[in-house]
């Protein structure tokens, strides 16, 4: 057993359960699953926001995966979004994935948001 796994060998995970609301700064060395609500600063290797969960504030993580509500400043290597992205949100990531639903419906609903993804695109020269 290493310090990242349980006795059963399954990965350790910090969970904010449904009905729990947390305000302030949260820093975790383990992946974080949010089913409740978090407002504030979040730092963790991986953040997963469940459909009933919400996170607002400053988030720094290796991976952010949301099917719930996110808002604020999200910074991660990889971001996968569905669910809802609140107003005044900034997403900075090396890679962003927003899938298209097979029935052509909206998978993610954006408010007023800014997306900075990958190497900053430089304008091409006019011909």
């Amino acid at each position: 057993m290493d310090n990242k796994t349980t006795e059963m060998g399954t990965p350790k995970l910090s969970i904010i359960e449904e009905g729990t609301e947390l305000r302030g700064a949260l820093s975790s060395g383990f992946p974080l699953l949010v089913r409740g609500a978090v407002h504030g600063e979040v730092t963790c290797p991986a953040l997963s926001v469940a459909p009933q969960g919400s996170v607002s504030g400053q988030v720094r993580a290796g991976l952010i995966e949301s099917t719930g509500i996110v808002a604020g400043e999200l910074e991660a290597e990889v971001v996968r979004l569905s669910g809802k992205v609140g107003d005044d949100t900034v997403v900075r990531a090396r890679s962003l994935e927003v899938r298209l639903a097979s029935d052509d419906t909206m998978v993610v609903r954006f408010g007023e948001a800014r997306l900075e993804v990958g190497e900053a695109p430089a304008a091409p020269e006019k011909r």
Partner: protein
Amino acid sequence: MADLTRDDVVRLLAEGQGLARRDLRGLDLSGLMLEEADLSRSDLTGTNLAGAKLRGASLRNASLREAYLVGADLSDANLDKAELDSANLERATLVGANLTRANLEGAKLAHANLESARLTNAELDSAELTQAQLSGAQLSHASLNEAYLGGARLAGADLRGASLQGAQAEEASFQGATLDGADLTGLLARRADFSGASLQQTNLTGALLEGGRFVGADLRRAVLVEANLRAAVLRGAKIHALVATSAVLVDVELEALDTTASADGGRLVSGADALAALTGRVGAQVLPPNQRYFGRGDVLRNASLEFSEGSVVVVESHFEHCTIQLGLGTELVVGEPGLLLGCQVSGPGRLTVHGQLFEDSSSPAVRGARSLVVSQKGIVRATIEQHPKGTIFAIEPGARLSVRITKSTAEA
């Protein structure tokens, strides 16, 4: 080490006791009768379960890493979130098993029977599925990147939104399967059969589909850029808004291709006309009347363009400071060599960017689009004012963006 012996396990089962959360690592439980047994959260790492009877057993969250399950019967077993990476399941029976979110990375599943199994969101990267039976399996949003599916049978399987990047599926059967929105980039599928399959909006960029069968397949809005379709059969396929730039289309059987948006058979094309419709390289006499193609190398400046409802517009040229009005449902596809620089695109159309879209002083560059898709090679630096009902976004990993999204200023 395990805290029980094989005899302990047999005794506990005889006493009707469960085996949940037990440490059973490395035990030899081969051939044991474990039907309906509760093994949830148990640790079966490296355990020998060859030929074991596990029909209806609960193995939820169990660790079966590197377990030996050759020929085991796991029909209707519950393996939800089970860890099966590098497990050997060759010739195992998993009919109707629940493998939702299971980790089967690198697992050996050759000749396994997974008919009607539930594998939604399962991880099957690099799994070995030679001639596996997956007919009717639920594989939506599963990850099968670089998996080996040679000769596998996936008739009627649900692969919506699944990822099969770089997977190998020579002579596999996907007859009647649903692959809408799946990522099949770089799929190696010589002589595979996709007849009757739904491949709407499927990304087959760079796929090797030589000798493949697509009889009656629905390829509307599929991306086949640089795909190799040599000697493929596309008889009766539905190809509305299919993008096949730089695809190899030598010796392809093109008969009765349906080019209508609704796939109602209202306009069928064959032979040279069908080839033209696929490549978009010819004039209006063979392209559907509502399709427009702006070829590579052309430059259009300060133009005003209006495309009526239901049109399909493919831009592989450079448009600079143009005003583009899209009608309801109009599709504007900016191909990989295409560039929209300082242009303003407005109206309730659908915009797909494989190339580049740059805003300069005219903002927003996109106003009121119903959907915006940016593929893995797409580059967008622009303000997007959403449709009054919200814009549908799809962004593939690899896309480069500097995008400001604003709400609609129009009445909803």
